[in-house]
């Protein structure tokens, strides 16, 4: 009989014992089959089996899939001894997840087409032979090489030209044309997943807030919702609305900032200059609510730490209207200026098929016509009651990634204004009891880069036995690499900015 994975709603938890344990081959086929039928891999990770000591014994491999047809998540698992036969050849979106599994636990992943270090990080404590494995400098690995007398290689980073995080980019070029780009990260690895183990404690929320600093509200909300799932409590409606307002402010600030930076990259200074200021105006709205331009200190397990009064709501409404008007003026110029469009259109295009195959998420996927957005597909919190239309475009190029962001900016402004006009009354925070024991809690939040996934598995005392974070950048970096194929290398900054992915969110 086929074991059915129980549906888990976003922001719910289930006892780990209820996650089906399948034979390895069956799990492989189930994941491959589900993804072929339109499911998305939200998480794929290994964990030493319950009962097994961390240094000896088997592993349990967990797959959390997004079932779009049901608007639910499905968790499946299998027990492994020391290897997981790769599904990447049949299911390319598993590519990085499998590299991570191999690196974190020294597990063999036979059949993987490009198995090499992902973050150049040591194995999780207790992984077999962890201590024996020597440490490699990040980037010190074999890169995919194109051979040929006329082919040359360009190496960039980890320290780049701008005020930006470190990463290494290796281009294979024929003249100006990029044949292949390989991206090697790990320089920002702080060991946050490892540090979260044993929690929740007073540092947990701060780790969440700094997983990716430009996505503070997104990750903090994902952490809070996962905690609330494990504790069986919901944040009060007013807190849910305030979190959503902050999440949309974060989206607007980053999208507007990036539209300005894209304009700057093609030498179009009016939009570039204006957007720099407008981004600041939006960050200052977050600071009005909680004192921090990045929304630090706002979302807390059980609700939010800051309330707004009528005067503040009025002030925010005025600023939102002014911001929407200014952004329309500044960004609108992009779509009517031929010199900008000539640089945006057709640059770094990805097909819808590629987007689905490699598991792109967020605006990068929606720019390829992929109609996916956690806010509408897996609504949790206030998103169950208030809806934002999903913004898509079809061309998958720099233009599409820019234009989808602009569509989202407008809808976020409208959403915030709407929420401010109908804020639920009541408390802003509830006290959470201890997290359930031996439970698996999942939360997915549509951050400005795409789906943020937090999976927490609690141990027999209700402490974090495993904390898995999947930042949308983890799923999208390979998209940038593919977008560069066949492009002039001089278009790299433009393509890169159109994705604007997080290094620290990937490196953890």
């Amino acid at each position, binding site marked *: 009989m086929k074991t059915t994975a129980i549906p888990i709603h976003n922001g719910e938890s289930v006892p780990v014992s209820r996650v089906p344990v399948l034979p390895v081959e069956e799990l492989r086929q189930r994941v491959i089959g589900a993804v072929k039928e339109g499911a998305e891999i939200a998480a794929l990770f290994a964990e030493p089996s319950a009962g097994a000591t961390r240094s000896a014994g088997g592993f349990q491999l967990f797959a959390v899939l997004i079932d779009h047809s049901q608007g639910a998540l499905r968790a499946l698992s299998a027990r492994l001894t020391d290897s997981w036969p790769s599904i990447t050849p049949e299911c390319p979106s598993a590519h990085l997840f499998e590299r991570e599994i191999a690196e974190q636990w020294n597990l063999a992943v036979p059949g993987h087409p490009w198995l090499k270090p992902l973050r150049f990080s040591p194995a999780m404590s207790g992984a077999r032979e962890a201590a024996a494995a020597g440490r490699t400098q990040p980037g010190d690995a074999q890169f995919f090489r194109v051979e040929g007398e006329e082919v040359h290689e360009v190496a960039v980073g980890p320290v780049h030209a701008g*005020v930006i995080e470190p990463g290494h980019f290796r281009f294979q070029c024929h003249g100006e044309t990029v044949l292949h780009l390989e991206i090697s990260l790990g320089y920002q690895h702080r060991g946050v997943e490892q540090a979260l183990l044993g929690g929740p404690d007073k540092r947990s929320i701060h780790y969440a807030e700094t997983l990716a600093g430009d996505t503070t509200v997104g990750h903090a909300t994902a952490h809070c919702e996962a905690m609330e799932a494990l504790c069986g409590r919901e944040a009060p409606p007013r807190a849910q609305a305030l979190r959503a307002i902050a999440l949309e402010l974060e989206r607007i600030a980053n999208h507007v900032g990036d539209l300005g930076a894209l304009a700057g990259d093609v030498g179009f200074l009016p939009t570039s200059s204006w957007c720099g200021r407008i981004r600041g105006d939006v960050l200052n709205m977050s600071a009005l609510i909680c004192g921090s331009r990045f929304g630090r200190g706002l979302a807390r397990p059980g609700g939010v730490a800051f309330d707004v009064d009528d005067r503040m709501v009025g002030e925010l409404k005025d600023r939102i209207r002014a911001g929407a008007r200014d952004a329309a003026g500044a960004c609108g110029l992009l779509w009517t200026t031929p010199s900008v469009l000539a640089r945006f259109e057709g640059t770094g295009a990805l097909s819808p098929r590629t987007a689905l195959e490699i598991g792109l998420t967020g605006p990068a996927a929606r720019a390829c016509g992929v109609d996916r957005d956690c806010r509408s597909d897996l609504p949790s919190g206030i998103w169950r009651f208030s809806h934002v239309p999903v913004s898509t475009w079809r061309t998958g190029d720099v233009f599409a990634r820019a234009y989808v962001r602009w569509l989202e900016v407008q809808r976020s402004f409208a959403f915030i204004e709407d929420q401010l006009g109908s804020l639920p009354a009541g408390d802003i925070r509830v006290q959470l009891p201890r997290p359930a024991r031996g439970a698996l809690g999942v939360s997915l939040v549509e951050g400005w880069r795409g789906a943020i996934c937090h999976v927490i598995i609690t141990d027999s005392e209700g402490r974090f036995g495993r904390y898995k974070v999947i930042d949308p950048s983890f799923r999208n970096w390979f998209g940038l690499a593919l977008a560069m194929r066949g492009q002039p290398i001089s278009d790299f900054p433009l393509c890169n900015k159109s994705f604007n992915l997080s290094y620290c969110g990937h490196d953890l």
Partner: protein
Amino acid sequence: MRFPRGEPPALPARFRGLPVLDSSRCVDGCSECVAACPTGALSFTSRTGLKLDLGKCLFCGECEAACKRGAVSFTNDYRLAARERRDLLIGDGRKLRLAESLGRDLERLLGRSLRLRQVSAGGCSGCEADANVLTTVGWDMGRFGIQFVASPRHADGLLVTGPVTKNMRLALEKTWEAVPEPKILIASGACAISGGPYIDLPEVYNGVAGVLPVDLFVPGCPPHPLTLLDGLLRLIGRVR
């Protein structure tokens, strides 16, 4: 923006700047604020009273929320940068000693033209984001001759963010070596000063001072653009 000749831009009422400690409000050394601090920035003994290390402080406000008597409160004062690590330790009677300039010789060299190479060495990119803000038209850091440059060889110093991860140490050291003498180093944000939220994790070095010599410490998580600009201007003697 008229700053620094005129008033700085207004900060929101809830902005958490320089904290003020008042141990006389502590009852029986309750230390609830100390227990609430996520990074161990606060300490209390009956002899010394409350002490706060601004270099470790995330300005999260958990201490202020934990104290019912107002022994810890955050003010709107954005001025936080110091030249010495020990100057960041404040208490009842011990005020923050704000940064002094680099001195006459370096002021002559760098006072009207300071080129910085920024290096992220771990961290969350929040510090980078608010450092970048200083280059936008509103702040226009270029009017002081301060500029972020693409190559360390074009730079007079480094602005380092992040706790210095093991994976980034070599690249940071090489970048520092590439900066010609005389050169300065600025540690911006709690991570670069002390490790910040990642303090004592096995993958980080608890800040840049353990790896390279630091000339200016700018607290914050991340530092507000105004805090960073104030620190830079103090360093080159444009604000005293």
